[in-house]
């Protein structure tokens, strides 16, 4: 038997078996078959060997983080990149996590079928459509013609090991081999081992930067990376608290388009618009629904399934224009929080001073978002010719295309002198945006678009932390000046005492300690 569910404005078909899986909060389904990505691999960040190896690591690490943190598990992620065939520039990439694991039957679909995802719902997560993981495997397969090995367990009695390939034309997994092991130690987690072509040495700076920045926004994770030369990079956990778990929510009426509306109507069991509005949309209660329907010009008891196409368009338009809907709440978001952000900055950047700020939740086009900003100064922060900016979206570092990002534009527009800062001083700005729908500028997902609602929050956040830094620096300067001032008194007063004593022909040099004490309170006149 199949039941319908609409999440994220899309219809999901969930079998009874899947329902039981959902209890472990992992749900799986087929959404749309396509080998479209085979021909358009640059969309997912696999345009060239250097970028491909970067993206492969990034996608698997993010899958691992999404398999741990939202389940309340402190992530332990181990990444090993080893040479497969040096002459061919091929590598074996292995990523292991201690996540919730994938139920045995869904491993092939989860890894070897496009648009099959556990994340296709309305709450904040790193990936969205499970595209990245599958894309990595696809890329590996077409560059090395080798299968992928996936080992996973949900912590129950068995550990599954699959050897898989993708049937690209049919968008279907091919199971080459499957093994079962006893899980005596109740291990849970997933290991993915994929072979792929790449240019590690060219990508290395970006990969290391990516891992470091990942550690900044995931200070509760242990991340270990062994590179092809056997060099070990360790990013150790310094906090044991996890960010709040995101809750699933209904779509907000401001974010609805016609196609989504069709799907919801097709699936609904409500017979009256007044019920329909309250049941399927975020933050719509009875009174809001009444007022909205009056505003939109629809009777409360109209049957949504009987709406004509032009009426549906009218309804969607009215939803966009009605400004009395409460803004979306942020419970579906999982911001880091100021403490975790601070801990992450402290451990990876080791600055002298940190200020962070979590802005109040806001929304654009019905999509809630929260901006978190940080500023770090001094310590091990390097002095760069230009401002050092770290950008994050849903706890993912963005390490490419900085200059096209809204944060970069904002950072460049700020008059730093106003805060007593110069671009060549050792300070770094961090901007983290979390949202159920990050306003990407391009499909490459490296740049955030300039949405006025979002850029306002970023700007105000940066201003706020910059002011805190300004206060810190001016206080520091004041203390320094005061110390210097007192040292001047300590240097000269004894001499005045000494020479005036000699000049006056006295024996005993007068006590100047009292004057030194008072010098502390004296302001320059």
């Amino acid at each position: 038997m199949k039941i319908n569910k609409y999440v994220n404005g899309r219809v999901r078909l969930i079998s009874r078996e899947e329902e039981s899986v959902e209890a472990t909060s992992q749900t799986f389904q087929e959404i749309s078959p396509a080998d479209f990505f085979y021909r358009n691999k640059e969309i997912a960040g696999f345009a060239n060997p250097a970028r491909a190896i970067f993206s492969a690591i990034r996608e698997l690490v993010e899958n691992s983080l999404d398999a741990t943190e939202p389940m309340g598990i402190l992530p332990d992620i181990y990444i090993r990149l080893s040479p497969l065939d040096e002459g061919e520039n091929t590598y074996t990439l292995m990523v292991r996590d201690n996540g919730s694991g994938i139920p045995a039957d869904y491993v092939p679909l989860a890894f070897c079928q496009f648009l099959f995802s556990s994340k296709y719902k309305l709450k904040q997560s790193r990936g969205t459509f499970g595209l990245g993981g599958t894309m990595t495997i696809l890329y590996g397969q077409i560059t090395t013609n080798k299968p992928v090995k996936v080992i996973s367990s949900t912590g129950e009695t068995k550990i599954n090991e699959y050897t898989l390939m993708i049937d690209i034309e049919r968008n279907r997994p091919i199971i080459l081999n499957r093994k079962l092991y006893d899980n005596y130690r109740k291990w849970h987690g997933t290991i993915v081992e994929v072979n792929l072509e790449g240019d590690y040495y060219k990508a290395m700076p970006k990969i290391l930067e990516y891992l470091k920045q990942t550690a900044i926004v995931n200070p509760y994770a242990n991340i270990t990376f062994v590179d092809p030369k056997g060099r070990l990079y360790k990013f150790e956990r310094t906090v044991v608290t996890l960010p709040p778990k995101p809750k699933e929510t209904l779509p907000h009426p401001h974010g609805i388009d016609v196609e989504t509306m069709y799907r919801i109507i097709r699936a609904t069991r409500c017979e009256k618009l007044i019920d329909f509005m309250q049941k399927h949309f975020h933050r719509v209660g009875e009174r809001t629904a009444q007022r909205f329907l009056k505003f939109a010009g629809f009777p409360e008891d109209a049957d949504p399934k009987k709406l004509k196409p032009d009426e549906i368009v009218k309804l969607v338009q009215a939803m966009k224009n009605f400004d009395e809907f409460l803004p979306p709440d942020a419970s579906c978001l999982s911001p880091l929080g100021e403490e975790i952000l601070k801990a992450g900055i402290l451990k990876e950047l080791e600055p002298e001073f940190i200020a962070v700020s979590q802005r109040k939740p806001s929304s654009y086009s019905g999509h809630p978002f929260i901006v978190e900003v940080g500023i770090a100064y001094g310590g091990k922060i390097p002095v760069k010719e230009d401002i050092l900016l770290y950008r994050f979206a849903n706890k993912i570092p963005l390490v490419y295309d900085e200059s096209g990002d809204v944060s970069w534009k904002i950072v460049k527009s700020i008059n730093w002198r106003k805060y007593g800062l110069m671009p060549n001083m050792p300070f770094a700005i961090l901007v983290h945006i979390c949202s159920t729908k990050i306003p990407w500028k391009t499909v490459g997902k490296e740049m955030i678009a300039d949405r006025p609602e979002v850029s306002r929050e970023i700007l105000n956040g940066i201003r706020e932390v910059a002011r805190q830094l300004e206060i810190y620096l001016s206080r520091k300067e004041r203390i320094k000046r005061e110390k210097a001032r007192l040292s001047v008194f300590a240097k000269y007063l004894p001499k005045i005492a000494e020479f005036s004593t000699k000049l006056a022909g006295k024996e005993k040099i007068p006590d100047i300690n009292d004057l030194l004490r008072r010098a502390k309170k004296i302001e320059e006149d």
Partner: protein
Amino acid sequence: MKKTNPTAREKRKEVLLKLEKFGHEIYEQIEKGIFPNITMPSRSTDNIYYSPDLRQYVLGDKKVRRNAGNIRHLKPFTQLVWMAYFTHELTLNQKTSTLRDVFYSAQAYDILFQDQDESDDIITDLETILGCTREDFNVFPEESSAVFGDLTIEYTVPNYEGKRLNLTSHPDGVMIGPALTSAEFIETSADKVIAIEKGGLFTRFIEERVHEKFNAILVFLRGQAPRSTRYFIRRLNQELGLPVYIFTDADPWGMHIAMVIISGSANAAHIRELTTPDAKWAGVWASDIISYKLPSDKLDDIDIKRLHELMRDPRYKEELWQREINVFMKIQRKCELEAFSRYGLTHIVDKYLPQRLKEVED
């Protein structure tokens, strides 16, 4: 022998007392738990006035306060107290020093001056506070001028104390250095002082026995006279009652050499008793260029500019000065003391000098 001024010995005692008093003041302020401070007349240009009565520049009523409780004053204040201590030691032990030497001496006491200008400035502060010249506390300039003539002096400096010297003893003249400055005047047969800008003429005058022929003490100024020389001339004038006649080149710079001896400079507005108001500029005048048909040069632009400045200068109010400035302007010529040599080496002594002295002695 008339004495209106304290003698050198008395002067020394007075300076030592002033320095000790300054030390006491600072000492007591510290003992009372207040930040030591001192008030002195301001030397800024808006506080310098010309006093027609005193016929010199003086400081007005504006005061400045140096307070050791003010961080900006602290270093100069310390330097000042050290300077007072150091110059007290100098004066007490009758050692002398120069501006340059003081600058280096400070380093021995861990008192740092950025440069000599800074230490010179502190010395000027001390002059202002004490109301006496740095020569009084034994800081002398490098350059020195000379004196020749029948004047017997008695040294007061260590090792020479009590020794007497007649200032005709050496045909080159006797250097007006620290020892001579602090010497007591014993006796003289001279009845006037002739001060000469240039060394060549000074030597010529000695060779031509001007000191005998005119009963004069000859002073070689060496251009703009150092303060010790100005002080020495004043002493000759005040202590011995000798009139003073000054001979310089006939140009605005020569005029001013004479004027500084007579009325002092704005830079020394904080000091009295450096000037000789009754001294006279006896030549060479602009009008002498015409009267004596002296070889002359055209005035340069800078000479003319200087003449304009002098014309407005309050020290130049008197008729002689104004008259000569106007002649300069009119003839646009200048000449040097040596110009008389055109008529033979002794012409200046034989002809010009007797005539001029007669004119100005009136």
